[in-house]
């Protein structure tokens, strides 16, 4: 038995070798993120007549390990916006807790009835992401920003490189391959948005979440969905005002799964024929 308490509970040098403390040294160069650690997979979103619907599952993976199964990757930012994040979860939490939350609080100091809208949040995030990639210290995320902006539904994407684009149907990660083609069937372009009802949009996104669960090994059957719509509120002075309404559906379990298609798959596992 070792009689030095500071050595108790530590790996024994004679068994495991001397602990390599080189990574603790402060003289080491600064380390920047070179790859994500705990990650979220796809975020799926679609515009419809009068709003946007956005969804992401609740899984945070550690490599191929399903590490956390109750992670919320959609978050409301201010009154008009939902930000959905794929990629590194700690970077997502940094974005929200250290950047967006204080930003929103500061915006509310004025108390002037002005709120940051989806396009403002989106532009801010794009600039942060591009700035960080330009410092070779990226925030390892792909973000979808969904919300209401200036009388129109808003949906746009920004990634760790600062690449930005907008379309009426968007998805990050595997969703870009699997979900976007499905969504584009009902929403090929901006003009089509007008003819899509809220119910159709939600159903399409739910279908995408199912397809993603079938084919994406880093996905989960439990997910969250948020629907951003606009409603007219009549104020006491009799003027109609626009108000943004965000409806949440959390802990949704995928319904009506059918794995029949899997029987037709050949080339994996133990089957011989």
């Amino acid at each position: 038995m070792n009689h030095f308490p500071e050595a108790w509970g530590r790996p024994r040098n004679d068994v495991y070798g001397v602990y390599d403390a080189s990574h603790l040294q402060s003289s080491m160069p600064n380390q920047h993120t070179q790859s994500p650690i705990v990650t979220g997979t796809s975020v799926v979103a679609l515009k419809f007549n009068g709003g946007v619907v956005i969804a992401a599952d609740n899984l945070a993976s550690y490599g191929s390990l399903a590490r956390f199964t109750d992670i919320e990757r959609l978050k409301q930012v201010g009154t008009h916006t939902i930000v959905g994040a794929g990629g590194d979860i700690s970077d997502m939490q940094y974005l929200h807790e250290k950047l967006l939350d204080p930003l929103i609080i500061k915006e509310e100091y004025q108390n002037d009835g002005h709120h940051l809208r989806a396009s403002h949040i989106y532009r801010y995030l794009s600039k942060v992401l591009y700035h960080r990639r330009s410092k070779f210290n990226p925030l390892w995320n792909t973000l979808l920003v969904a919300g209401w902006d200036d009388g129109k539904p808003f949906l746009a994407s920004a990634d760790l490189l600062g690449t930005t684009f907008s379309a009426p149907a968007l998805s990050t990660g595997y969703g870009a391959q699997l979900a976007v083609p499905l969504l584009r069937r009902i929403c090929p372009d901006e003009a089509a948005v007008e003819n899509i009802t809220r119910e159709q949009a939600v159903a399409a996104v739910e279908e995408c979440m199912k397809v993603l669960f079938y084919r994406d090994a880093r996905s989960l059957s439990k997910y969250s969905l948020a629907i951003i719509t606009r409603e007219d509120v009549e104020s006491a002075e009799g003027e109609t005002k626009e108000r943004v309404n965000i409806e949440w559906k959390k802990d949704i379990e995928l319904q009506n799964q059918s794995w029949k298609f899997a029987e037709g798959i050949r080339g994996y596992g133990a089957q011989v024929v």
Partner: protein
Amino acid sequence: MSLPSMQPLGYDQSYSFHTPASKASGGYTQHRFNPYADNGGTIIGITGEDFVVLAGDTRHTSGYNINSRTEKKVYRLGGDNGLVLATVGFGADSKDVAETMMRAVNDFKFNHNLKNMSVSAAAQYLSTVLYNNRFFPKYANCVLAGLDKDGKARLYSYDSVGSYSKEGETRASAGSASSLIVPFLDNQVEFKNQFVPSSKGQEERPVVPLDPITVAKLVKDAFTSATERHIEVGDGLQIVTVTKDGVSEEVVDLKKD
């Protein structure tokens, strides 16, 4: 810059997130964050005597994915100065360069008693911006256009570290399908390899400034052809025309396949 399509098919759609691991000389495997991506697309510019056209497709890609069919690449640098800039390459750098130029042109106006920046000054400024970033280049290929003080069309094109010709050009193209379009413009704008029919190939066809209708046709032909042959070009075509009366824009469809 090699096209993603020239590399073997990867199953990871976020291929641009990674530089493939490489073996360094010491035998170590190096992993490194790659700050660049190629978002595809093509731009062109053609001048006439007193007008200039800049055009770009509106497809935005990552590898084999089409991110958006409606991302414009041609930017007006001010409300009333007739300066237009088209950028293509890495989307984030392209937008950053465009915004830098918009801000510079706007600042110039306020700093010079509401006089607009001349097109030659804007051209030199853009070169300086790109050159100042030469050790971490903006992967943005630019074509800048406008009318000079005599109302004559000016067109400048740049490489990603700011090289450009002060004299300007009559036509330019950049982006993924530029290698398809440049020879076409050589032939149709500069009349390269065209001869006076009666001269039996001895006398080159004289170069004359093109009229707006011909230019519009050339732009559309160039892009429909590029759309056929290049997977990163298509969806929509944004055509911006600068004349003495101002700047006008139209967007026409291209094939979406």
